[in-house]
């Protein structure tokens, strides 16, 4: 009988999720203001520093194991906040890219394809990075591979968006 009620709740939960997504999809506007403010909130150098293996090696050598674990855990949570921000920016880039993809101008449409492609890859990276950082936060004593690929991917995505912006500027001049 418990399983029956679990399944009934699961069915109702599914209906709730569908209703939420359906209503959000109707009202969701693509605003570049949001993308810009998210970009503003990310200090890429601070993030680079947080996930820098050399910095971690230095901390490991200079601190006691207990202090190191505490600091590493704090750094991991801070890095996670950055990654979440990068993920949000990736979603906004992906939406902007998909909107540009449908432009009647072939050059903008092509740039849109590139932006969407890079942004979706970046979103995947943020998922992987979040899992790895969560692991580091929970097991701070273990060492892990650097997260430089995430930063590089983020920069590539932003650069593609920058190219699209330049393209639009040339057309409007």
């Amino acid at each position, binding site marked *: *009988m418990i*399983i*029956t009620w679990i*399944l*009934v709740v*699961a*069915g*109702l939960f*599914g*209906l709730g*999720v*569908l209703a939420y*997504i*359906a209503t*959000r*999809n109707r009202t969701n506007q*693509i*605003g*570049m203001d949001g*993308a*810009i403010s998210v*970009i*503003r909130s*990310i*200090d*890429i*150098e601070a993030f680079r520093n947080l996930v820098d293996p050399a910095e971690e090696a230095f901390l490991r050598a200079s601190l006691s194991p207990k202090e190191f674990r505490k600091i590493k855990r704090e750094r991991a949570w801070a890095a996670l906040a950055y990654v979440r921000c990068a993920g949000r920016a*990736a*979603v*906004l880039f*992906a*939406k*902007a890219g*998909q*909107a*540009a*993809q*449908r*432009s*009647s*101008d072939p050059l*903008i449409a092509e740039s849109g*394809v590139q932006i*969407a*492609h890079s942004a*979706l*890859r970046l*979103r*995947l990276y943020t998922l992987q990075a979040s899992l790895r950082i969560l692991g580091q936060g929970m097991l701070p004593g273990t060492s892990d591979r650097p997260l430089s690929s995430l930063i590089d991917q983020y*920069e590539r995505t*932003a*650069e593609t*968006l*920058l190219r699209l*912006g*330049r393209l*639009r*500027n040339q057309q*409007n*001049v």
Partner: protein
Amino acid sequence: MLLWISPHLLLAIVAFLIYKRRVYREFPFFLLYALYEIGAFVLLYALNSISSVTAKQYTYAFMATLAISIALRFGVIKEVSEDLFREHSALRATARQSLRWSKVLLALIGIACAAFAPGEDGLGLMGGLAVINRGVAIIQSGLLVFLLVFARWFGLSWRGYAFGIAIGLGVLSSADLATSAIRAQIAGEQWSGVLNLLTTGSYLICALIWLGYILAPERKHSVAANVSVNEVDEWNRELQRWLRP
């Protein structure tokens, strides 16, 4: 009776509009499913009206039509997911892999439910059918919810028709999951009427959703085309500042 007939009338309008607007080129399985559902309804309605047809014969016919309907629904889910990921090569492999694993996981949940909650004894053929339907509903509603959440998480934009089809089918499967779970466990004569009402009611909502999305004009995501020079300047300034700290 009206609640049984009306969703199929709406479905006939949906099928007509799919054909007229040539949506069938992108969603052939969905058109096939809509036509099949109408055909199955006509057959079952006729069998229900003929007095010489026994309850057992009707149940067998219902089971046969349901089995084909379930298979076609899987086809529609596949069609919708392929449409969603068509333009996103970066995600296609990940999406396929995630969907495959979700199917395996949901199938295992369905089997586990059938093993640990096989239903009340004495419910006969309909009880067994409800257990199978419950397992299928777990997989189908799970897949559709996963697909919609996945798309939202990645910021993927749906085309109107595909989104409508997914939402409608999701509502139908989720409601099916809840009703078939109750039917498999506690279905009796006193519950049967309420559960039938819920099933046909959810089918009506599903048909209305499909009709709404077919009638609604396709939404245009024209942010890039409408952007002003000042706005583009701002993107450039911000991105340049950010890229060269």
